[in-house]
């Protein structure tokens, strides 16, 4: 069982946003998608979610996702977009209930199965205490948890999250990373876009690095994020922090050898 993307290409007019991107994502894995701004991370995530027309194939257990109908696909992959938008001041429980849309015939009449899934999702995201709060009045960290709970309520084997820890304070960043770690441990395949190399190297099973619409590296974080790669792709040098339980990279200085992106004509 795995989600496999083969030779994905996305064009916008004459611009190539993604080019021959291939990757594999297995259940139990937490994979972080890294890359500088404009590398194509969000485009790749949206393509996997079926939101962007693309060349190439996305397969689940050798079945082509393009042949599935919208609901089948929705039951397979849950997607959390950037920004955590909520257009109406509905309660957190109502937000999480939207996760049952791919399963339920009607959101106004939820079955006991749906209700149980909503409770489990709220518990897993540690958001039970927020259930009756109005989502537009929550803090950024609380809202991120509720939006993740919405995706968990789908109970899909694959979770795609776009910058789930952006704009969170340190407590919630670590909390969210641990939560994603736990979700993978429980058997989900989790792919998340992040900018934080420290959290990615500490919590990720793997990292996939995009640059200019291509995959430039894919593998175990510390071995993959080599000093050369960090210089060429991110233009930085990093320090390595080793503790008893984990090893992590800490972005430290701008690298002198990298093409300086601040001085482009």
């Amino acid at each position, binding site marked *: 069982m795995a989600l496999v993307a083969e030779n994905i290409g996305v064009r916008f007019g004459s611009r190539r946003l993604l080019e021959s991107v291939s990757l594999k994502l297995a259940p139990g894995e937490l994979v972080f998608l890294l890359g500088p701004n404009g590398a194509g991370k969000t485009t790749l995530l949206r393509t996997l979610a*079926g939101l962007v027309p693309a060349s190439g194939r996305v397969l689940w257990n050798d079945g082509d996702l393009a042949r599935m109908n919208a609901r089948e696909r929705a039951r397979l992959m849950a*997607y959390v977009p950037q920004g955590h938008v*909520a257009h*109406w001041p509905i309660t957190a429980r109502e937000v999480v209930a939207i*996760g049952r849309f791919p399963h339920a015939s009607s*959101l*106004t009449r939820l079955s006991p199965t749906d209700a149980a899934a909503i409770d489990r999702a709220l518990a897993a995201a540690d958001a039970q205490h927020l259930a009756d709060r109005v989502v537009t009045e929550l803090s950024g960290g609380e809202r991120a948890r509720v939006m993740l709970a919405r995706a968990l309520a789908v109970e899909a084997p694959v979770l795609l999250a776009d910058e789930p820890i952006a704009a969170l304070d340190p407590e919630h960043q670590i909390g969210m990373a641990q939560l994603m770690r736990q979700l993978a441990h429980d058997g989900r395949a989790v792919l998340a876009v992040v900018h934080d190399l420290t959290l990615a190297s500490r919590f990720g099973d793997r990292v996939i690095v995009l640059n200019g619409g291509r995959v430039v590296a894919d593998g175990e974080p510390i071995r993959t994020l080599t000093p050369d790669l960090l210089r060429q792709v991110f233009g930085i040098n990093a320090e390595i922090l080793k503790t008893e339980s984990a090893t992590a990279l800490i972005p430290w200085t701008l690298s002198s050898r990298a093409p300086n992106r601040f001085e482009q004509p």
Partner: protein
Amino acid sequence: MPRRITPRAFGLTVALALLVGVLCVVSLQIGSVPLDSRTVLGALVGQGDPVDVIIVRELRLPRTILAALIGATLALSGAALQGLLRNPLAAPSVFGAPSAAAFGAVTAIALGLADTLSYALPVAAIIAALVSVAALFALAGASANILTLLLAGLALSSLASAGVSLALNLAPNFYAALEIAFWLLGSLEDRSFQHVAMAAPFMAVSWLLLLAARSGLTALTLGEDVARTSGVRLGVLRGLTLVGVASGVGASVAVAGVIGFIGLVTPHLVRPLVGHDPARVHVPAMLAGTALLLAADIASRIIPATSEIKVGVLTSLIGVPFFIWLVLRQRSRDLMQVVG
């Protein structure tokens, strides 16, 4: 089975249904020959003075039924558009759909395609409404940006008004122009069961389509990407709403002229009690729309004036200040977002 219908929402729905019942009876009582409620209820089943029976069954019943149906249809269109566009300022009348429908109907009359009691009239109104709502969606694009929507609505509304003015301008004689003008004001005066029969099928279509699209609107609360990855087919949702709103508004305008702002106001009236989930607003909003239009129609008959006040004028007099209040509230929210 855990249902998401809260006791408060249920209570509101029952209370509104009762209110609609009372208003229906009152609507049958009021007129040049005032009748008491017992006479009215007797006359409905054909008992009592034959004159009263004719007054109630032939004159006031169709008017009452039309008010109820149109109120519900316009409210539902408003709730559906607000849900689809994720915007509390959305409504058919804000985007000029009723003016467009009026233009369609007036054109049909002016071209001699329709006398006032044939299906050509609602069909022409519906086609014009369809074009205007489709143009609005196309102009505003997929984004839910309110400024773009309002500007597009303003443009389309002005265009439709210009079309109606042209029809008035080219009217063959003074009386034809006067008839068009009065019809534009929106009225339920002197409507018959033929009018009901003309509008009801299209309204039924509108209700079916708009109510069927409800669940998708809830998913849209979290944006289009979440809706699409939840299995909502956005194209279908837009199509259902487009055809549903156009046939509802077109049918209403074809039989009663332009009655504005019911669709804008009613969803806001019920939200404090049923919550903001767009799927749960529809049915209570329909009942509130029915009650509001019945009340406005009753008021139009009670208010002393040299000629009967047109109900469309009344709803606009209520609706426009309400719209201004909404804009002010939106503005203060925007300010808070900038500060916070």
